[in-house]
């Protein structure tokens, strides 16, 4: 108190009473100004925490060893919920089931991001007519829960479904017990940076088994220098259960030909905007005759887009798999882009129903005729794509040729055949 009185007296003596008065007002006013919001609690700067915060997905899978754990087949993925249960996860699950059955072992599905999705698993079993010889256990090993542990015997096999699940598992189990199902050049998900580097390093892991979706992707990766794939890699061609895709012409009620566009603006590799440019140009040029055709956007967008000529296509976002396939059966022509080496599933889905598809070239993806002559592969410039779309329209309307190509499709339809060599190899 004495100190405050002395400071006031000293200020008044030096700057005068008037200034002292204003100084006191300033102090009072300043104190009434609301203080800045308190900052977020400090984030740990310990190096291990920094990594954990930046890359939680690749923290080691928390395993433990029970005295008498019996060997199981494990599948590690992010989630089985609808948003994640696309072709890739379903393919991995089918492989896991067939592998578990072939070794008469229990299957354990470990999710790291979300719990649930058992109904999707059941629907997959029913749709593919699969049965388990042993039981299946669903474990949600939450990345954020430090009280979760996975008991693993020395003989457990781990099927991983992405570079990050692989990177996490490889920190905890012998590398030769990992089967990494690689269904895309996952490096292409990222700009050049840490994720890209970590992904590249994971794919290049010398002792991990890589099971690669399509020969195209397999060849591309080898061409790109992943020599480990020559020794530890296998590829498989995916299957499309024909019975699910058979068109029943009588069931299809439509007044116009249908053009499908795989519209996923949030998935950069699907080139949503290039596809729109192409459709717009084709409409401008009259290549797509709206008297004859109607356009559907299937994928994730629900936004109504108006083309230059005022036409607004119909959008069917986020269809359940069954509804998606039912709708595909009504399609005559598809435009489905994929800016990676993998053919992607929609062109194969569509050609299994008998439709014509236009997709794009990428590196060694120069032709998909080995799957179906109804799949036209185009350069990515707008003019080439518009031209391919024109060819696609002509082929689509040429019933005889289209049917001939369809009959001669070379798309696998039995997952047992797709995974035959892989299952034989991992048996040992």
């Amino acid at each position, binding site marked *: 108190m004495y100190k405050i009185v002395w400071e006031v007296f000293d200020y008044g003596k030096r700057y005068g009473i008037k200034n002292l008065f204003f100084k006191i007002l300033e102090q009072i006013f300043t104190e009434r100004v609301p203080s800045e919001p308190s900052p977020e609690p400090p984030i740990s700067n310990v190096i291990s925490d920094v990594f954990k915060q930046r890359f939680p997905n690749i923290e080691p899978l928390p395993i433990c*060893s029970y*005295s008498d754990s019996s060997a199981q087949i494990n599948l590690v993925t992010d989630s089985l919920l609808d948003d994640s249960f696309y072709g890739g996860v379903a393919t991995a699950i089918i492989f896991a089931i067939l592998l578990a059955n072939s070794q008469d072992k229990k299957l354990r599905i470990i999710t790291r991001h979300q719990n649930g999705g*058992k*109904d999707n698993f*059941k629907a997959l079993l029913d749709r593919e007519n699969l049965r388990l010889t042993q*039981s299946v*256990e669903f474990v949600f090993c939450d990345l954020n829960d430090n*009280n979760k542990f996975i008991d693993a015997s020395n003989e457990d096999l781990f099927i991983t479904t992405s570079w990050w699940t692989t990177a996490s598992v490889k920190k905890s189990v012998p590398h030769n017990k990992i089967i990494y199902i690689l269904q895309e050049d996952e490096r292409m998900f990222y700009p050049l940076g840490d994720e890209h580097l970590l992904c590249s390093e994971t794919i290049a892991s010398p002792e991990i088994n890589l099971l690669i979706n399509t020969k195209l992707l397999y060849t591309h990766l080898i061409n790109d220098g992943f020599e480990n794939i020559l020794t530890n890699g296998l590829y498989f061609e995916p299957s499309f259960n024909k019975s699910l895709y058979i068109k029943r012409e009588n069931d299809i009620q439509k007044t116009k030909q249908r053009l499908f566009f795989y519209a996923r603006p949030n998935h950069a590799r699907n080139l949503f905007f290039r596809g729109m440019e192409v459709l717009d140009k084709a409409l401008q040029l009259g290549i797509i005759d709206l008297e004859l055709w109607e356009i559907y956007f299937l994928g994730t967008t629900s936004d109504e887009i108006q083309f230059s000529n005022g036409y607004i296509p119909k959008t069917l976002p986020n269809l359940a798999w069954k509804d998606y396939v039912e709708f595909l059966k009504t399609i005559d022509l598809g435009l489905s882009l994929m800016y990676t080496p993998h053919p992607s599933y929609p062109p194969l889905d569509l050609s299994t129903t008998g439709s014509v598809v236009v997709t794009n070239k990428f590196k060694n993806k120069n032709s998909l005729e080995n799957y179906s002559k109804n799949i036209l592969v185009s350069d990515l410039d707008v003019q080439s794509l518009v031209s391919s779309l024109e060819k696609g329209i002509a082929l689509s309307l040429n019933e005889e040729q289209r049917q001939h190509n369809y009959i001669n499709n070379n798309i696998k339809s039995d997952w047992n055949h797709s995974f035959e060599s892989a299952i034989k190899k991992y048996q040992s």
Partner: protein
Amino acid sequence: MFYINTLPAEYIEPWAVSLENRLNSLYSSDRRIAYFYEKPDCSTFRYRVYNMIQTIQDMDGISATYFCLEEINYLHSILDSINVLVICRARYTISLNSLIARAKNKGVKVLFDLDDLVFNTQKIDLILHTLDQDFNQEGVWDHWFAYIGRIGALLKLCDGCITTNTYLGDQVKEYHDIKTMTIPNFLNQEQLAISNKILKEKLESHFQRTDTIYIGYFSGTPTHNKDFAIVVESLIKLLEQDKRIRLLIVGYLELPDSIKKFDDRIEVYPLHDFVNLQRLMSLVEINIVPLQNNKFTNCKSELKFFEASIVGTLTIASPTFTYKSAINNAKNGFISNDYEWSEVLSKAMDTLENGEYEQMIRKAHSDTLNKYAWYNQKNLLKELMDF
């Protein structure tokens, strides 16, 4: 929900009998079995000690009674008068060690009785994992290693082991090479009395019910979070789709947040005594028993099936060892794999509409009486004397 007129019964613990009276019962026959259990309770003690004694007392030429820890001195003093000593799920102490040593020296056969995989410390990880225990708590490890280690130590001192099923028996043999026999859990006289009355009501009213459909989950211990988690997703889906659905939960359960939005359709009751529990079970249309499938849960008994069946309630259970052998799928109940609950719940609900419910209940009831009524266990219990 079924219309049941039987009112809740006034409950008195039937085993609360003075030591004097119990000793009189024991001496009522020449061949005598003494049971030891640390402290009577409504779960293991009821099924493994009380029910056994009640049935034995109805048999010719054999008698039985129980002693608890505070009566161990009495037990020491009557070793000369008994033929068989059954130690039920007790923890090692030096005085029990001494009791067993003295009993054996006097020619008394000493048997251990087990209803759970709780004797082998090598299974602790599995047990803690199944029971959703906190691995990061030192106290958890101290407790479980001590608890299971002590039970295992006592088991090793005995001449043989009685288990609730053969799966558990095999686990015992793997741990300690000892002779085993199976006596399943079964329904006692009090349970059957109230259940018969309720079932009669249901049959006479042709299973008359309200428009709501109750799914019941009856949890005896506070360790079933992971089991309930198996079915939560399907229950949520069902609650969303069908406004008639209600959940009735009895006992300990930490409801997951995801299902709490249906609070107004979930009724939670505290643990009930075993007689009135039968009445509560009879109210629901469907009794669910989701269980993880591992060595620990495969040792569990099928009691949730027969407790429900005897009061005319249909059960859906996971395919563990005992439930798989008790339930003839789609005949006297339903078996559901983890990923099938939505479908199986729907099937079970369909039986209410298509008339199959009553048919399945009749089958479940008759199977239950044949296999799990107290009076059908006498031959097995007779074998105890010659074990």
